[in-house]
């Protein structure tokens, strides 16, 4: 029985990188996404505290100047430095998108998992409310909430959360229903592990990872949505800078100063790109069996 002796140790598999961030870094698109995302976050953080010029103070003598060394992105109709405004607006655009996604992720994860695991009345109530939220197209629902609350940045965020949470709740519910049936969950039940520990240790991490990947992939469209609402004047109110709002302002002077549109448009494009690169890489490295 030398060959099959059960106590004969197996060959040791080669070490594998297990930390998610490192694996993301090794993924080609993940690395570029992380670098780009880090650069954008740094840019946004810096823009919140310091800009080369005051972003909100008009300087009528220098209105609608083209790009130059002093004003790399030019100046707008009231002479405000466009670079400073793009920089100052970054934390609103990126921060708001991340805030909304963090909120819908958390609300959806908690409500969806609760509905899936508790079942019964809780499930019925949560899911029927979610059905109502999902029955209305997201933008229409957001418009309706903004109509009730009035335009404004905080109200915009609330509107987007109301419009989006139900999708994440549905996803979390079906993932947790599936996870509840997994053999490792049944094994833990049989071992006498209390319910709350099974939920926190076995079910939630797996569901959160899957839902988190979906949320990361949605970051791009969320930045677009926030910019879109600000473009329509329903989000950030003047004179505060935000990329969508900057696009809306610049649009009026398109014939005179077309470069004004380019800067915020590029920033939106780059942040959508970074989010999608990271989201795609995350989906690749986190999928089980891929190791």
């Amino acid at each position: 029985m030398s060959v099959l002796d059960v106590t004969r140790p197996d060959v040791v598999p080669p070490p594998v990188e297990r930390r998610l961030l490192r694996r993301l870094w090794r993924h080609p698109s993940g690395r570029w996404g992380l670098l780009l995302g880090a650069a954008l976050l740094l840019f946004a953080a810096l823009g919140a505290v310091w800009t080369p010029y005051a972003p909100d103070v008009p300087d009528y003598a220098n209105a609608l100047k083209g790009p130059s060394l002093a004003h790399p992105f030019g100046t707008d109709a009231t002479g405000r430095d466009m670079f400073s405004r793009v920089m100052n607006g970054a934390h609103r655009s990126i921060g708001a998108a991340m805030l909304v996604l963090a909120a819908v992720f958390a609300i959806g994860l908690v409500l969806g998992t609760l509905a899936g695991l508790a079942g019964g009345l809780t499930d019925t109530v949560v899911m029927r409310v979610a059905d109502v939220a999902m029955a209305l197209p997201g933008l229409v629902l957001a418009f309706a909430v903004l109509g009730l609350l009035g335009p404004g940045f905080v109200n915009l965020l609330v509107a987007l959360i109301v419009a989006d949470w139900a999708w994440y709740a549905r996803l979390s519910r079906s993932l947790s229903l599936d996870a509840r049936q997994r053999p490792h969950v049944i094994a833990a039940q049989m071992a006498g592990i209390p319910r709350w520990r099974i939920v926190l240790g076995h079910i939630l991490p797996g569901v959160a990872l899957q839902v988190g990947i979906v949320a990361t992939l949605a970051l791009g469209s969320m930045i677009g949505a926030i910019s879109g609402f600000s473009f329509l004047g329903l989000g950030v109110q003047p004179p505060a800078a935000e990329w969508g709002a900057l696009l809306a302002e610049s649009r009026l002077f398109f014939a005179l100063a077309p470069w004004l549109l380019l800067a915020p448009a590029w920033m939106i494009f780059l942040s959508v790109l970074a989010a999608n690169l990271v989201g795609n890489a995350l989906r690749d490295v986190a999928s089980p069996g891929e190791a």
Partner: protein
Amino acid sequence: MDPVLACQNLSVTFHSGATPVRDISFTVAPGECLALVGGSGAGKSTIAKALVGLHRNGTKVSGSLRLGGRQMVGADRATWRQVRGRQIGFVAQNPWASCDPLRAVGDHVAEAWRCHDLTMSWRGIAARLDKLGVSDAGRRIAQHPHTWSGGMLQRASIAAAGALVPPLLIADEPTSALDADRAEAVMTALRSLGSAVVLISHDIGLVLRHADRVGVLHDGGLVEESTPEALQSAPAHPATRHLLAALAPLPPRRAPAPAAPVLRMAGVSALYDKGRLPAVVDADLEVVAGRIVGVQGPSGCGKSTLLRLAMGIETPTGGTVWRDDALKRPGAILPVFQDPVGSLVPHWPVWRSVAEPLTAPGRPRASAAQRRERVAAALARVGLGGIDPEARPSELSVGQCQRVALARATIAAPAMIVADEPTSALDSPSTWRVSKLLRDAAENGTAVLVVSHDSGFLARLADDVVGMEAGRTRGPIRAAPR
């Protein structure tokens, strides 16, 4: 006579630079069955794909591959399309995966003619299926694949592969999705066409029974080639000996000491949907400490439900389940499942999954260091002392995962282990090891309840075997003396 297939120094190089198949040479004479056998990672599937030209553009196939005198290395897609079906037929592993669920089985078989602009009447197709042992073929070919059993559907695949009477059939694990009893019938059907067969399989027992010559693959190379008899009597390569060892009987069973039953089910029923769906009807079962009880029956006969009733995660709608006091504390019954990878927490290091039963409330508290020590001992017992306890399940093989699951099931000294098809996802050496470990658990006084469709596996492993059919148990089929 000229060989139908002659491989000379065949190598396959992936785009990544890996060469899963290196310098393989063999020939197949008309009507002969050559089996290529090997463990996982030996390069079996890569060869199968190379033989039918299914590798994608990034993969380089080099050497020589002569099919009926025609050189196929470097052949373009149009040439391969001409050859497939006429010169070479292919039978894939999973018959359901090779069928479109929305089309009738007859359509699938007819496709073999249609793709070469030929026609075949359904009556003709039915006759072919009939010859392969599909009963009532004329009526059944109009049905959809999901209404067919795996064994029958695999015969339909064989009929399609042999439609144009190619001189050579390639069969890649044709029976691994099937029950053991059906596998034999499918192999007989495969040989009955009279074509030469290249059979690719991990199942050395099957190969020895059905092949004329056997080649052993190991690590991408052909390490030994011989007749089944010669291979069995004088295996030359360690890889061959490793494969053959899985056929060895388990070491003789120490007679179980007489002991009292720990679980007794009498007249137990589980009816779903207000009695319209009986899963288990009037079942009787007795499990004794230190003995292995097997429940044997075909898929869908209610075995798994019976197991869940025994575990207590389902309540019967009728009858009584009596459990000994030893089975009433939490953690006294621990399960082993059919899906080894899914039975471990995917985002946990394996040591944490193994240690989990130790952390249940009511158990003596153990420090993290003590737990790790006990995990190390438990992993060593199942032969996994060499793996990194920090490894995630996805880094281990399926067989290793099942042994980790066994380490978890035994670490907290349960009174009973229940196992649901514990070996159906495993290759023969892993099956042997898992059987041995279940046997060890019983010899240490644990009651073991195993359900399986595989009569051979249960005959080797269990002390008593109970049959089950359509939800009803049929007395002990076989019982060891007490």
